[in-house]
């Protein structure tokens, strides 16, 4: 608490350091001219004094300046900048509409955006425009937010095709993934091959890897802030696409023009439909009376409505639901004693997320913007297994097995943006979440001869309260030095236990000159919930669990140093280094797997620590016919657990010494553009036996016959390196009703056999190490339309 006091004092003093000249406030919303959508993190600043701010998540900005001539500039990537010269002699309410047509005023856009990278205090930030995400070549043509982010330095993919994010040596559970401010717990479909975010329904993606502002908390390694589109306030429009494995459709428009709008979007895969004929062939070939069906699909839906009550009040309701479903059904019939008997076996595996948020924005005062949100989110995983034996129409026997696990959250956020003085921009607020953890409930019921037995082996639900309060100030300390400092205080109560933590957050930017700046940041983060996972593939059995008496909250500290150089209007370069420590990490005990999880999960865990360090270089070209970037990461990530690897440190499974990504997008003309990505990464660290030897005879059956494999350390073997080239070409056409695009893609264009896992097998009775690869060259095609 002392730290908190100190920070408050510094804050109060710094707020009073401003000059005493007459000041006025310019405030308003930044919106998209064609759709009326609000623009998040648009740069609003006075070119003369170099003072500025950015619009918040709801497009609102408030900039207090001295009474003087002001040359106001408002810009955002992908939009023509707005500039206006005015004399400020009273408070001004200014709603600014930006024109999204890039071609109109390319040159103006450029330097403003690059300028922002140099001037902002925020480091370790990745922003990726949605149109860029959609243009990148991807697996099966399914544009994917998380996979696009994996192409950035400091962010790594796990195993082949997986959409998990490994940020600066951290795990996939250490990312705070927010969809419209609501935490999403399992962000993947199809065992991790696709992420749950439908790019047609998303307006903004922002990933913070370090230098976390005080307003975020609850996870150790990153914050991924994804915002859903709000719906076009001006006119009805739609877009959709049909691809190899999925189709999607989005429709949006005004409910009341310029006042209220909606957007609705849906996506479904059809692997089950495609596989159905194959299964039928199998059934027909078997010739028996049995019927077997199996399938898999996922769908997701996004919906949002918003209503602008007045210039000061606006409400939003947003909703996401997604579900994966895998199933097998088999039916066998036969005649016995002149009666038809039927045996049905069904197996279902379902999992999915629901998130929803009700939000109210209110401008109390031109300097004070408030946002109140009520959130609800849920993740559930269920398996149902049913056996039924029918004699005629009577049920002779029936067994039902059901397993259910999940997490439920209800909560509320209250956030304020306050711009008291020209050089200060303050954010403060509070958050509360009520979690209900369901760590695995199993019920088994059986009926035989009209007798029924039901058994319940459920683990008790665990209830927990989590809250935080925060305050941060973005302060132009001098012409060259800008600071963002604050504190985040959080608490977690579970089963009569209370955990708390005060987390300082500081970021600083020092301008070397107009084109270059140095940045530094230091932050603490804590994480009260843990993911029990067998992380090699994104299994839906992943179990979120709270901190308890024996499993303490995870903690991290990260320091980062960076250099940003805006080489010219087109190119910028950023170099960053970081050092991060991680405490109270959890791992399965050696030999424990998720199948033994259901009971006593705490006793299956080892608690340990980790540390990661590295540097990242990003050279990015933002505008012109050719855009893209080259990223390189040199990194180390270690783990140390008392009871794993005999207490010696070992490399994290996804410790990646070198990671390179090259992304090029070339626009030949309005009709044709091409994309290329090439990635290279050091092989994953795995544990492999190097020798076999005989064990001490313990007079057991197994001790006579079993040779023990000798491992010379956890994760001490490196798989072969990973590299892959993906290509895409988009052919666009304007039609009477809108635009259509044919996209063709090649995933793994030179069909590199990348390792997915290794095992020891036999080749003509000779023992060899074998490698299994997942995806060879995979073509894809997608037809998209927009009207």
């Amino acid at each position, binding site marked *: 608490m002392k730290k908190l006091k100190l920070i408050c004092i510094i804050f109060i003093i710094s707020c009073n350091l401003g000059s005493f000249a007459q000041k006025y406030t310019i405030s308003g919303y930044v919106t998209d001219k064609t759709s009326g959508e609000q623009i998040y993190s648009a740069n609003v600043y006075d070119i003369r004094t170099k003072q500025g701010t950015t619009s918040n998540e709801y497009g609102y900005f408030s900039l207090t300046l001295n009474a003087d001539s002001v040359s106001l500039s408002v810009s955002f990537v992908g939009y023509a900048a707005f500039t206006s010269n005015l004399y400020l002699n009273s408070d001004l309410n200014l709603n600014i509409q930006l024109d999204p047509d890039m071609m109109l005023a390319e040159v103006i856009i450029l330097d403003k955006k690059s300028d922002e990278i140099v001037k902002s205090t925020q480091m370790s930030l990745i922003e990726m425009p949605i149109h860029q995400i959609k243009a990148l070549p991807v697996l099966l043509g399914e544009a994917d937010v998380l996979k696009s982010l994996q192409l950035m330095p400091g962010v790594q993919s796990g195993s082949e095709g997986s959409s998990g994010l490994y940020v600066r040596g951290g795990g996939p559970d250490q990312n705070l993934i927010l969809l419209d401010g609501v935490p999403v717990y399992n962000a993947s479909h199809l*065992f991790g091959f696709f992420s749950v975010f439908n790019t047609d329904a998303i307006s903004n993606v922002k990933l913070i890897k370090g230098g976390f502002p005080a307003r975020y908390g609850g996870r150790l390694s990153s914050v991924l802030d994804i915002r859903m589109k709000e719906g076009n306030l001006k006119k009805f429009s739609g877009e959709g696409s049909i691809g190899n494995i999925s189709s999607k459709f989005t429709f949006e428009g005004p409910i009341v023009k310029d006042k209220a709008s909606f957007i609705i979007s849906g996506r479904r895969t059809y*692997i089950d439909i495609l596989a159905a004929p194959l299964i039928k062939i199998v059934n027909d070939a078997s010739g028996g009376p049995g019927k077997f069906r199996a399938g898999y699909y996922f769908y997701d839906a996004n919906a949002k409505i918003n209503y602008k009550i007045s210039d000061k009040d606006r409400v939003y309701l947003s909703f996401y639901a997604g579900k994966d479903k895998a199933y097998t059904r088999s039916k066998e019939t036969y005649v016995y004693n002149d009666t038809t008997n039927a045996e049905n076996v069904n197996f279902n595996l379902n999992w999915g997320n629901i998130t929803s948020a009700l939000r109210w924005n209110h401008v109390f005062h031109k300097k004070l913007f408030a946002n109140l949100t009520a959130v609800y989110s849920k993740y559930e995983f269920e398996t149902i297994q049913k056996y039924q034996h029918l004699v005629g129409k009577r049920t002779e026997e029936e067994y039902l*097995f059901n397993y259910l696990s999940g997490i439920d959250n209800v909560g509320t956020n209250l956030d304020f943006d306050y711009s008291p003085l020209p050089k200060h921009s303050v954010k403060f607020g509070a958050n509360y979440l009520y979690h209900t953890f369901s760590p695995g409930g199993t019920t088994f019921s059986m009926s035989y001869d009209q007798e029924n037995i039901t058994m319940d082996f459920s683990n008790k639900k665990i209830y927990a309260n989590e809250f935080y309060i925060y305050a941060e100030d973005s302060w132009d300390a001098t012409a060259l030095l800008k600071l963002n400092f604050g504190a985040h205080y959080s608490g977690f109560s579970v089963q009569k236990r209370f955990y708390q933590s005060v987390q300082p957050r500081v970021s600083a930017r020092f301008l070397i000159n107009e084109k270059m700046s140095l940045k530094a940041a230091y932050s603490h983060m804590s994480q009260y919930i843990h993911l029990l996972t067998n992380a090699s593939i994104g299994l839906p059995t992943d179990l979120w669990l709270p901190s308890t008496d024996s499993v303490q909250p995870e903690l991290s500290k990260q320091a980062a140093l960076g250099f940003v150089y805006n080489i010219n209007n087109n190119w910028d370069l950023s170099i960053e280094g970081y050092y991060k420590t991680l405490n109270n990490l959890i791992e399965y005990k050696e030999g424990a797997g998720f199948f033994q999880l259901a009971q006593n999960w705490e006793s299956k865990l080892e608690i340990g620590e980790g540390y990661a360090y590295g540097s990242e270089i990003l050279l990015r070209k933002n505008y012109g016919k050719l855009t893209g970037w080259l990223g390189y990461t040199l990194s180390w990530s270690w783990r140390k657990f008392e009871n794993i690897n005999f207490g010696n440190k070992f490399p994290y499974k996804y410790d990646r010494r070198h990671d390179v990504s090259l992304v090029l997008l070339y626009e030949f003309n309005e009709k044709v553009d091409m994309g290329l990505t090439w990635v290279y990464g050091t092989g994953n660290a795995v544990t492999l036996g190097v020798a076999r030897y005989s064990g001490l005879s313990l007079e057991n059956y197994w001790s006579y016959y079993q040779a023990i494999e*000798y491992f010379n350390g956890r994760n001490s073997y490196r798989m072969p390196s990973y590299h892959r080239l993906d290509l895409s070409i988009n052919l666009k056409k304007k039609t009477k009703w809108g635009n259509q695009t044919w996209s063709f893609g090649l995933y793994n264009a030179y069909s590199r056999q990348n390792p997915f896992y290794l095992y020891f097998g036999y080749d003509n009775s000779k023992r060899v190490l074998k490698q299994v690869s997942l995806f060879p060259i995979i073509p894809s095609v997608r037809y998209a339309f927009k009207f």
Partner: protein
Amino acid sequence: MKTNIFKYSLIFIIFTSIVFIIACEKTIEIDIEDTKPKLVLNAELNPDSTIKVNITRSRHILDNAMITNVEDAQVKIYEDEIFIGNLIYDKNGNYRLNYKPKKGKNYKIIVEHPNYETVKATSFIISKIENISIDTSSTYDEYGNSITNLNIKFKDPANEKNYYMLKLRDKYKTEIWDYSIIVIDTIYTGPDTTIVNISQGAFTYEYSTEVVYFSSNDINLDEDNYFAGVLAISDELFDGKEYLLKTSFDANYTYYSTDTSLIYIDFYSISQDYYKYIKSRNKYTYSVGDPFSEPVMVFTNVENGLGILGSAHANTDSILIKRKNYFYYE
């Protein structure tokens, strides 16, 4: 059973689903760095038996040949750093010395061989604990099956780390129809298999041991404490307290044994290294081949080599239980 259905259905569904999106799967050979074979030392020192050390060699992981014994090594043993003798090669990789280790002494074994790096291991012979009671009782479970409860009550010495091992063995006599066996009269004593080969014309009788499966509801135990007949437990949760270890087993069911067989119950105090070895080895056995679990590294205390030098001290004489008349072996 239920978990198994769940487990296999889940594995099936995951793999079939993945296969839908995998266009092809191919295996590639990769060279693994050559690792030189090492000497493997395995021994359990016990004050109640003479010293026996087993020496074998490790194989490169890609070498599919049988693991073989090292018959020409020099095996020296030291008691509190004083040389007490060279072990003499006997057979099956075993080297012996007609000497019983003493409690409270440190033993060091050095194995030398011209083709391998010299290996070294040490172990301390702990004292056995006093005032221990072992009792058994027969009862029936809820399904009417006969079970035998085994309760071991003892006082753990305070302020020191103690480790215990429980072994249940089924000793029985079988007829071996092997005409090639040449009559050998050998009687080995000690904690390992007691084999008595008695020539009787065309076939031999062999006394063999088999594991007795047992289970426990003890909350301090999970599957890595016991796996098939050997249980290792540490006093971490009951240091200095009186402890009642409850286990149960089916004294009637056995695959091999006849009504003449006996179940031997032995409860030992063991060294820390031995405990770590048994625990990690149980875990290893439990999880080997499961693609979803992290590989388990089996503990070793042999410098420059592999294996274990453990020490065990039986707390009581063996408790014997006679098998009932059930005979499942066909």
